[in-house]
C-alpha cells in the first residue's frame, strides 16, 4: 500500500536528519571540531588528546542523553494526550515534575541547612537525581493508588492537576525558607540540562528508557481503542484500570527518569506528538509512537545544539530553548486548528 511507502520515506529522511544533527551537535560548542576529526577519533589515535576528551567524555554522553530524553518525553506525551483525550496533556500533567521538584527542593535545602556544600559534583549529580526520582515516584504512587479508586480518566486528570498545585505550593514554601545558594542550585536544576552525566548514569537512564518504551509499545493496542472512547474500549474487553496503570508506570519510568537526570524539560511532551501527527497524518499509535520517539529525539538534539551556540560564553538553559521552539509550534497548531 502506498501509505506505508510514504511512512517509510518519512522515517528515512527523519533518521537522516537525526544523524546530521548528531554530527553537528558533536562538532559545535566552545571548541569547534571539524567533522573529519570526529571520524578520526574513532578510526585513529592521530587526534589531539583534548579533542578526544571533549568528544568522548563530554559531548557523546550529552547527545545520547538528549536523544533518550526527547524520545521518552514525546512517547509519554502521546500516551497522556490519548488517555485524557486532551491535546494539551503532557508527561508532567499528573505532577511528576512537581514531585521531582519537591524531592530536589528538599534535598538541596536540606543539604545546605546541614551546612554541607552542594557544589561537590557527586553530591549534586547523584543526590539530585535520586531525590528527584524518589519525589516523582512518591507522587506517582499516590496517583496510582487514587487511580484504582476512580472510575474515569477525567477525574484522574483533575486529581493530578490539584496534587501538582499542592506540591508546587510546598516547593514555594521551602524556597521561601531557604538561603540564596540553595535556592540557586534548585533554580539551575529547574532550567534543565543534558550535560554532566557519566556513562554509568547514562546506563541507568537507558535501562529506564528501554523498559518504559517497551511498556509503551505494549500499550499501543489499548491506546488505539481508547481513541474511540472509554465505553467502547470497555465493551471490547479492554481492562481500563490495568491499561491506565501500565500507562502511568511507563510515564514514571520515562518522564520520571528524564526529569531525575536532566531536570523538568518542558514543551517537548506537548509539541512533539502534534508535530508527528502533522507529518504522518495518522493517529494510529503503531505509527504515532515510533514517529514521536524519532521526532522527539530530533528536536531535543536540535534544542541542545542551539543551546551551545553562544560558544565559549557558556550554554543557554535547555528549557529556554525548548520553550522558544515549543511555543511557536503550539501557536501554529492552534491557529491552524489542527487539534483534534
Amino acid at each position: 500500500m502506498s501509505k506505508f511507502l510514504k511512512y517509510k520515506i518519512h522515517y528515512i529522511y527523519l533518521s537522516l536528519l537525526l544523524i546530521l544533527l548528531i554530527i553537528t551537535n558533536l562538532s559545535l560548542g566552545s571548541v569547534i571540531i571539524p567533522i573529519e576529526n570526529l571520524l578520526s577519533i574513532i578510526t585513529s589515535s592521530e587526534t589531539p588528546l583534548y579533542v578526544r576528551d571533549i568528544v568522548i567524555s563530554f559531548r557523546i554522553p550529552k547527545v545520547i542523553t538528549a536523544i533518550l530524553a526527547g524520545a521518552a518525553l514525546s512517547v509519554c506525551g502521546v500516551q497522556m494526550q490519548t488517555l485524557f483525550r486532551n491535546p494539551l496533556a503532557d508527561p508532567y500533567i499528573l505532577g511528576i515534575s512537581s514531585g521531582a521538584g519537591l524531592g530536589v527542593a528538599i534535598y538541596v535545602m536540606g543539604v545546605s541547612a546541614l551546612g554541607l556544600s552542594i557544589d561537590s559534583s557527586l553530591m549534586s549529580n547523584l543526590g539530585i537525581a535520586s531525590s528527584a526520582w524518589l519525589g516523582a515516584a512518591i507522587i506517582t504512587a499516590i496517583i496510582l493508588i487514587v487511580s484504582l479508586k476512580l472510575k474515569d480518566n477525567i477525574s484522574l486528570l483533575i486529581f493530578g492537576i490539584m496534587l501538582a498545585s499542592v506540591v508546587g505550593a510546598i516547593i514555594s514554601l521551602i524556597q521561601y525558607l531557604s538561603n540564596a545558594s540553595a535556592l540557586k542550585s534548585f533554580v539551575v536544576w529547574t532550567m534543565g540540562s543534558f550535560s554532566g552525566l557519566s556513562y554509568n548514569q547514562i546506563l541507568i537512564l537507558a535501562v529506564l528508557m528501554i523498559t518504559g518504551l517497551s511498556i509503551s509499545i505494549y500499550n499501543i493496542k489499548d491506546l488505539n481503542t481508547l481513541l474511540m472512547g472509554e465505553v467502547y474500549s470497555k465493551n471490547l474487553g479492554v481492562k481500563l484500570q490495568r491499561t491506565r496503570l501500565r500507562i502511568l508506570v511507563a510515564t514514571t519510568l520515562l518522564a520520571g527518569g528524564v526529569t531525575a537526570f536532566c531536570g523538568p524539560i518542558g514543551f517537548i511532551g506537548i509539541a512533539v506528538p502534534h508535530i508527528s501527527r502533522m507529518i504522518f497524518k495518522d493517529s494510529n499509535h503503531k505509527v504515532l509512537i515510533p514517529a514521536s520517539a524519532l521526532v522527539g529525539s530530533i528536536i531535543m538534539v536540535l534544542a541542545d545544539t542551539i543551546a551551545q551556540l553562544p560558544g565559549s560564553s557558556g550554554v543557554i538553559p535547555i528549557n529556554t530553548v525548548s520553550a522558544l521552539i515549543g511555543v511557536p509550534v503550539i501557536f501554529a497548531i492552534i491557529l491552524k486548528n489542527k487539534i483534534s
Partner: protein
Amino acid sequence: MLEENRYSSILKLNNVSLGYDKIIYQNISAYANPGEMIAIIGANGKGKSTLLKTICKIIKRHTGEILILDKTIESINSSIFPTLISYVPSQNPRPKNLSLFDMMATSLYNKTNWLGKITADQKSIIIDTLTKVGLSQYINRDCTTLSDGEFQRATIARSLIQDSKIITLDEPTAFLDIANKIIITKLLKEISITHNKTIIFSTHDIAQAIKLCDKIWLMGYDHFYNDTPSSLIEKGAFDKLFKDSNLKFDKEILNYI
C-alpha cells in the same frame, strides 16, 4: 401475548432494576431471541441508555439478574463477553487522522496479538463488512471526513466485525436526517435477518419501530412492556409512555397527536 421460548432465548432479564445511585426504573423482565430486532422506547430520562449499558455490563444494576445464553453476565469471562454482546454508544468520539480501516481494526481487540496485528483473513473480513454497509470506497479515508450517516454505518460495521451475537445501539438514528434514519434502520433489520443477530436499540422514532421491529421494549411510566408492536397497540401501551400528558397515540398514523 408472546410465549417465551426457553431454549432459543439468547438474552433474559429477570426483575432488573436500573440506576446509578438511586433506582430509576424497576421490574424489567424481558427476553430476546436470535435474529430478533428489538426497539427500546420510553420518555427522556426513563433509562433507555441506562438499560442498554446495564445489559452490556458497563454499569451495575441494582437488583435482578441478566442472563446471556443462560449465564449471568457477571459470570461470563471478560474475554468472552465481547463475542456475545457489543455496544454502540450514542455519541462516538471521532479521532482525527485515524483511517476507517484502523477504526475497524480496533474491534478485533480480542482476536489479534499483543501488537494488534491484522491477518490477511481479518483484513478481508473488514473489507467485506465495509462493502456490506456501503463504505468500502472510504477504507483509507480519515474517519472524521465521513458524514454523520456514514459514520453511524461505520460504527455498525465495527460491531459486525466484533461479531457478537447481540448488538446494542444507543439511539443510532438520533442525529440523522430522515433518509439516513431509514437507511440505518433498514440496515439493522437486514443484519438481524441475514446474520441471525439480535439487535437491540433505543429510539424515539416510534412509527419506524412499529413497522420494522419484531418486538418493542416499552418503558412506560407504570409498567415495562415486552411484546410485539401489534399487541402493544392493542393493549394501548403507547398511551402509557408519557405521564400527565394530553398526547394520544393514533393507531392509524402510528404516532402521537
